[in-house]
């Protein structure tokens, strides 16, 4: 279980992701930003529940919906915000944008615009830590839709065959873009797919930090101990559209409202953590305010930051020294 201090930290991260994403949503809709934004609102407990077990020698690969994973893995908020504004001070100098945020120093090996492509890369990172015996683990985050990609299959098979310290976090939010998961696979419970690789699997309530924390902890522990990879299916839901600008229309309001009203990971965490005596509502409200201020500061600094120069288009293609 987690300590009081850790609980505050967890809430701070949940709130940061939520507020970061909501701020982006507002700014994008107001025409203040360009690009393709896939927001993580609703799924925060997954990123935070998993990354709470990780440290800097551990690796994470992510997907198109990557902001939450990046924040939970400790990527600098200002650098992320500036990146989304296409500024020179962005974590990727404005060259990558939302779907390509990475910070190798923090073990964040990349968001990814290709569904499924991050999965073998995490296995590659697991190979590195295994060959170099660093004691690290590597985690891949991906969606239900990605489990229908060949790369999911090939990567899990390799990880299992080589018994690598990898953990596969399947965020099952019920949709791949506009297509409901049940039209993309003959079943909606996807953890069973681990059986194809004789792999350990677990199912977590992806809306509940504590459940994700426990299940991911078990998987990460096993990986660290050399017991091989696991697949953890986290049942979750995205509260916003597939991307900012999605007309939605493929799901009913009732469905959405049910998840939002009854299973929002922030109130869920708050209620449980207060019940457990880990935090007070006051402390959380203070965090809310701090986070808001931090995000406003990140926006202000991103807005003020310079754009790259046009000539920068030509640099950073090859390592030249």
């Amino acid at each position, binding site marked *: 279980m987690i300590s009081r201090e850790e609980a505050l930290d967890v809430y701070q991260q949940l709130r940061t992701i939520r507020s970061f994403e909501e701020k982006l949503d507002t700014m994008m809709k107001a025409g203040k930003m*360009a*690009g*393709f934004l896939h927001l993580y609102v609703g799924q925060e407990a997954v990123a935070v529940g998993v990354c709470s077990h990780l440290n800097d020698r551990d690796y994470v690969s992510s997907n198109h919906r990557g902001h939450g994973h990046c924040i939970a893995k400790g990527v600098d908020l200002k650098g992320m915000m500036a*990146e989304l504004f*296409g*500024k020179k001070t*962005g974590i*990727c100098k*404005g*060259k*990558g*944008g*939302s*779907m*390509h945020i990475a910070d190798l120093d923090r073990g964040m090996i990349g968001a*990814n*615009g*290709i*569904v*499924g*492509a991050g999965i073998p890369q995490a296995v590659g990172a697991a190979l590195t830590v295994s060959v170099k015996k660093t004691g690290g683990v590597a985690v891949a985050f991906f969606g239900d*839709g*990605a489990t*229908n*990609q*060949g*790369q999911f299959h090939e990567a899990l098979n390799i990880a299992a065959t080589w018994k690598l310290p990898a953990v596969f976090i399947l965020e099952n939010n019920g949709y*791949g*873009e*506009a*297509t*409901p998961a*049940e*039209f*993309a*696979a003959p079943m909606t419970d996807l953890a069973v797919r681990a059986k194809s690789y004789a792999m350990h699997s677990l199912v977590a309530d992806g809306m509940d930090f504590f459940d994700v924390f426990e299940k991911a902890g078990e998987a990460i522990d096993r990986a660290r101990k050399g017991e091989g990879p696991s697949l953890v299916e986290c049942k979750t839901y995205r509260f916003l559209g597939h991307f900012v600008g999605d*007309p*939605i*229309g*493929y*799901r*009913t309001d009732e469905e959405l409202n049910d998840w939002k009203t009854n299973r929002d990971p922030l109130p869920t965490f708050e209620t449980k953590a207060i019940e457990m005596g880990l935090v007070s509502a006051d402390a959380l409200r203070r965090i809310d305010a701090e986070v808001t201020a931090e995000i406003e500061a990140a926006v202000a600094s991103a807005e003020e930051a310079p*754009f*790259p*120069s*046009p*000539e*920068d*288009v*030509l640099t950073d*293609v090859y390592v030249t020294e």
Partner: protein
Amino acid sequence: MARTLSFTAALNEALHIAMEADDDVIIIGEDVAGGGGRKDQGIEDAWGGPFGATRGLIGKFGPERVRDTPISEMGFLGVAVGAAATGLRPVAEIMFIDFLGVALDPLLNQASKMRYMFGGKARVPLTMRTNVGAGNRASCQHSQALYGMTVAIPGLKTVIPSTPADAKGLLLASIRDDNPVVFCETKSLMNSEGEVPEGDYEIPLGTASVVREGGDVTLVGMGRTVHTALEAADALAEDGLQADVVDLRSLYPLDEATVLASLEKTGRLVVVDEATPYCGIASEIGALCIDKGFDFLNAPVKKVTAPHTPVPFSPVLEDEYMPSQEKIVAAVHEQLGWNT
């Protein structure tokens, strides 16, 4: 009668016509309906394709013929190849051409080679619709212009319209072609509008079109860069230079005759492509000119392309990345020795 339609609407119209005319035409791809199986909940085609080009098809032709797929590009393109070889005429959508990274084999080693390797006995009437190009801040994995890759593959045809009217006529011709065709739709043109004839018509694959006449220099473009070339032609006209602007429309088969005829007339050629510079159409046109157009050439053939870099995200960088009117004008000036 022609009406003004967007690119997307013109494509949509072509798909309606093709499906109506031929029961063998089926549509498969991610979100081509989108929530299409939830008719019971009043949801039929929430998306109608990522850009809306397949809207209305599932309602009219049913879920047997309009199929949302899992996110399995290699798989469903392979399915489309198998279906094409056995009697259907599938139109498969690979949402962005960048996703050929996970879908190349059905084109590279299967559809393109079946007829040949089976001794002329297969027909693979597959059309692969896909979105190409930069300019929408979609960053490097959703903005490439990889048609050079499909042109290089014997057995495939590759098409890229620059106007809604051509989009409709070329798509109908592609679907009815008995060969596998890669049909490229340019991201930055999807909402652009133009006059589109009503009814059923085809534009034959392999015919370029001269969209502006002028005797001083030939500008060759495709898709978006036809428009950039036309802007450049306007700018050049202010310098007193008249440009022929050739819209390739079909990249393979390539209408060499039209390109060479224009070059013969002008003696100078600039090829404008939003793809990266190496081993693409721009180089191909250069190689064509130096081989078959050698006697016509009064100046080096210049390529105005994207640089040899991934597509950057930042608007400032992406704008610089794209071929521009200014770069075309500069290339023509260079050919004329104006800036040396």
